[in-house]
């Protein structure tokens, strides 16, 4: 066990997996840094510093700094994966999915199915996501909802350094394409991380808090928000199950449904805009599969249906916080059906 930042946990995982398996390669913009400069290749490892030291250790053949051309990067990852490698591509901001969606959606995600099950595409795309750093409308989006909508992709969102390490290890070893969303607002967050290798399997949610009154389902950086809300509610005697999904696809429906069977009340806390997002997805699934258990409408706590605004006050109002979660929980507990069902 060591205390480390989320970015360090990711860096350690990359080091360990590259050491273990020579077919693991990494590629992306500035993931080395300093290529073609007087200063020379930098150990800095990209603007997030998640790839620091890899170039020095594993060399230019396996640590590939690329020009600004995300379609080429993701396409190259797809091709290298088809050819037997385990590429880990970095997309600097989730918002840049816009310039390379085809390679994710129509290529990687579809190979296995459209080639009749006769190919594997074990590529990982690491993606820094999320609001909270005042990066404005084109550098703050979450995007994991859009990706969850795409058949063939696995979508992973760690919520802490230790989670990041186990989930990234699994992502790299997985034989399907994995989109690995790193909450960029948490890069500097510290936590205890086992130094040895371990995997966290996909499709198994994590119970972060336990309580029998309301279920709160969330993922990524909002897990902390939900936990804070649950802790405050606990002081008022209200018990919440807080479920960290870890992976939105595959989705651990069982964990959600089991909890709702007990609580009868669900808050879904999601960072995507509300329309066709993850909150709606889970609300609908529960509405269908746990209809009889629901004692109140599912409450979806999301940002409004707008781009992510820049100014501090605006972004603060945009991103759901613990207060909004608490209000949603309280409201559910106060719900009295107006008509018989």
């Amino acid at each position, binding site marked *: 066990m060591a205390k480390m930042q989320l970015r360090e946990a990711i860096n350690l995982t990359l080091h360990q997996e590259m050491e273990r398996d020579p077919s693991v*390669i990494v*590629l992306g913009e500035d993931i080395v840094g300093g290529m073609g400069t007087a200063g020379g290749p930098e150990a800095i490892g990209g603007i997030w510093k998640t790839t620091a030291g890899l170039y020095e250790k594993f060399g230019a*053949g*396996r640590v*590939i700094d*690329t*020009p600004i*051309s995300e*379609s*080429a*990067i*993701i*396409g*190259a*990852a*797809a*091709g*290298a*994966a*088809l*050819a*037997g*490698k385990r*590429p880990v591509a970095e997309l600097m901001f989730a918002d840049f999915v816009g310039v390379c969606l*085809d*390679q994710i959606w*129509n*290529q990687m995600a579809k*190979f*296995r*199915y*459209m*080639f*009749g*099950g*006769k*190919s594997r595409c074990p590529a990982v795309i690491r993606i820094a996501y999320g609001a909270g750093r005042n990066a404005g409308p084109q550098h703050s989006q979450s995007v994991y909802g859009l990706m969850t909508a795409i*058949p*063939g992709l*696995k979508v992973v969102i760690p919520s802490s350094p230790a989670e990041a390490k186990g989930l990234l290890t699994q992502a790299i070893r997985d034989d*399907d394409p994995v989109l690995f969303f790193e909450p960029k607002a948490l890069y500097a967050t510290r936590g205890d991380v086992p130094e040895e290798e371990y995997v966290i399997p996909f*499709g198994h949610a994590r119970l972060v808090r336990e309580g029998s009154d309301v279920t709160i389902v969330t993922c990524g950086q909002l897990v902390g928000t939900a936990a804070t809300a649950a802790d405050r509610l606990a002081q008022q005697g209200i018990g919440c199950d807080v479920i960290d999904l870890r992976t939105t*696809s*595959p*989705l651990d429906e069982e964990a959600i449904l089991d909890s709702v069977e007990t609580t009868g009340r669900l808050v879904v806390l999601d960072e995507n805009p509300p329309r066709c997002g993850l909150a709606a997805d889970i609300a609908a699934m529960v509405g269908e599969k746990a209809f009889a258990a629901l004692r109140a409408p599912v409450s979806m706590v999301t940002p409004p249906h707008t781009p992510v605004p820049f100014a501090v006050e605006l972004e603060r109002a945009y991103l759901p916080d613990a207060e909004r979660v608490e209000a949603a929980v309280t409201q559910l507990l106060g719900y009295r059906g107006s008509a018989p069902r």
Partner: protein
Amino acid sequence: MQLSREQMLGAYRQMKVIREFEERLHVEIQKGEIAGFTHLYSGQEAVAVGVCEQLTDGDYIISTHRGHGHCIAKGCDVKGMMREIYGSAEGLCKGKGGSMHIADVDKGMLGANGIVGAGAPIAVGAAISAKLDGQGRVSVAFSGDGACNQGTTFEAMNLAVVVKAPCIFLFENNHYSEHTGVDYAVATSGDIASRAEAFGMKVWRGNGSDFFAVTEVMREVLEYVRAGNGPAAVELDTERFFGHFEGDPQRYRGPGELDRIRAERDCLEAFRTRVTEAKLLEGADLDQVDAEVMQMIEASVAEARSAPRPTAADVLTDVYISY
């Protein structure tokens, strides 16, 4: 490049297989036997075969929406392909992909591709992998003259040069993207190779209707790329004998154009004339290949027609999860 008798017969056979595969599909599609959009490769055979005959299973290619020729040339099972195009459960992709998505990764065939321009970056990735393996293997991205305008193609060329990937950008200039002429859409009056050159790549140009010309160009290109000099680009001038897709009225063609290209730029005829005049092969040798190929195509159609059909349950296989 001196080819053996066997190599020549083999190449001719491959070209003939492609030709008859496509000519037959043309007929079957008109009869309504085949669903979906199909893009035929007839006329361009010398390119696919001239390139792929010099590749091994360890080399990679990636293809386009007009992929049958590349697939056959790279060694995909012809009957499996026919079954796929017919949508059989025993097609090469179990009927899930169809004409535009035939792949056989074990043969280094990374897929036909329905998205114009999507192949080039994927080919660069395979080349990066090949380079790391250090065995002199290469990756070939087939692209059309239309695809060369897609941003992905440019990005891929730049990336390949930057990382010195053993990738060959093979542009088949058949003068049309759908209904549009290459002189219009490729801003340099249709000159593709010069644009590739501007990325710092060595480029070759050649007559894509002449198998021997393609072979010679590719010999040089492969020597260059396998030796670790980084990527290269090739522009081959060729012709497609059918419309963009089956059903295309081809009003964009000039008067007599189709007859002219069939008469003057048929790579199979050119091959026959060349090898018989030079007494490298007898006409009878080729006739025999023709007959065998016709029989094989006939058999593959017959078989594809009666091959097992997929069922509703098959929709749900080859996924990692079902919702």
